[in-house]
Each structure stands twice: as C-alpha cells, then as structure tokens.
C-alpha cells in the first residue's frame, strides 16, 4: 500500500493506493493518520479511489482513524469509494456512522 499526503484549501488529503490489509496496509494507514494529526491537521480526507481490497483490519484502521481525529478536535471523512469498499461499508453498517462523500470537490467543500 502507498499513501501520499497533500494539502488542498487547508484540508489534508491522504491518497491511498493498494491493499489495506493486516500487517502492512493497516499500519501504514495508522502511521499516516497519526503523522497528519501530530502535524496539526484538523480536517482530514481519505481518498479511497486506489483501494481495491480492504480486510477487517483495514476497516478497523479506518474506524480508529475516524475516532483518533475526532478526539483531537478534528474531522475525518472518506471519498471516492470503490464499489467493493462501498459494499463493505454497507455490510458493516459503517455508512451510518462515518462521513462519506462522493467526490474530492464535495469532500473539500464539506468542512
């Protein structure tokens, strides 16, 4: 898994690419989110477009990131969800608790 961090209009965007799975992807995600929060980021977006596979550890890491950022007084949202990831968010009912947007424009404007 590769994660690139960039800024747009005061929003920190993490572009995820690859597999968010146990042992590698999940840890990379955790580290990237912690780095962003430690760097003072409040408004964080996760771009899931490049993610084809996410296991329960990956989903767990997304949930943990959501909570971590919230506790630090910020907000974390997801956008560009590929269909298989979207299925998983439905099945786990996380669509009801996480903030999910369609496009990057909509996501950036939502803060």
């Amino acid at each position, binding site marked *: 898994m590769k994660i690139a961090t960039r800024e747009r209009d005061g929003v920190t965007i993490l572009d995820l690419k690859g597999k968010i799975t146990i042992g*590698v992807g999940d840890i990379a995600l955790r580290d990237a989110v912690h780095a962003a929060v430690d760097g003072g980021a409040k408004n964080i977006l996760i771009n899931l477009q490049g993610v084809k596979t996410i*296991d329960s550890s990956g989903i767990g890491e997304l949930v943990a990131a959501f909570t971590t950022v919230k506790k630090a007084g910020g907000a974390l949202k997801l956008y560009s969800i590929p269909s298989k990831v979207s299925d998983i968010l439905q099945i786990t009912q996380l669509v009801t608790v996480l903030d999910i947007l369609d496009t990057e424009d909509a996501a950036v404007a939502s803060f």
Partner: protein
Amino acid sequence: MSSDENLVLLSIGSRFENIELVQVVLDDSLRETAMDDDSRYWVGIALREALANAIKHGNKEDPAKQVEVELRIDEEQVIVLIQDQGEGFDPKGVENPLEPDNLLKPDGRGIFYMNRFMDEITYDFAPEGGTVVKLRKRFDSPPPEQGD
C-alpha cells in the same frame, strides 16, 4: 477423494505477508470454476480473515508455527480448512459488530465477514490444540446481499 476434485494443501509460516500467497492460490483455483467474479472476490476476503485470525490469535505471530490450509474444489463448491496451533476460543463468545456499542470498535469484524461471504463456516477444536475453521461456498449460491 473423487477424481474430479482438486486438492491443494498449503502450509505457511505465521507471517501476515503469507496471506497473500494463499489468497492468490485460491483465486487462481477458483478462476477455472463456475463461481462468479464477485463471489470469488468475497470468498478471498473470507479466507484472508480466517488466515489473519489463525496467524494473529491462534499462532500469535510466531513465524515458526505453521498455519495449514486445505483447499478442496469440485464441480459444485469450494471448501477451505484453516488450522492453527493455538489454544482455541469460544465462538459463542464473539460479539456482533453491528451492535450500536460495537460499531466504532476497531476490531471484531473478521468472523462476521466470513459468515457473510460464505455459505457455511464451522469451528472445530482439535484435542491436541489448534483451531480448525471450515469455510464452504457453492458456486451457484448468490453473492452476499449488501446492507441488511
């Protein structure tokens, strides 16, 4: 063993990287069956969860402990058995991740995935120790519905 069954056995050291290997073998094996692409994807995810549990909870990530995988594919279905060398657990004690209190917990979704993506999942505990989880999916059973 009936002659139209393909049996593949795999044994991996308890490293998360090895999950990939087993998943690729399953995926390649299922590609030649009547299973549709979506179902094949979800069966792959269920397998990942079973392997992750065997490596993490069963073998506690000790690379010297092996996880044994048995893959049986015939004309109708795939059966996967995953065995670790751990101490077992009580499947009845596992919580439902859809409970409002559990929804934002970072873990506890693996067995739920397996139940969702397979026709059948059963746990067995070998007397000499070790958890065996059996996953089964017919090629003609529909892919899991989304949501509730």
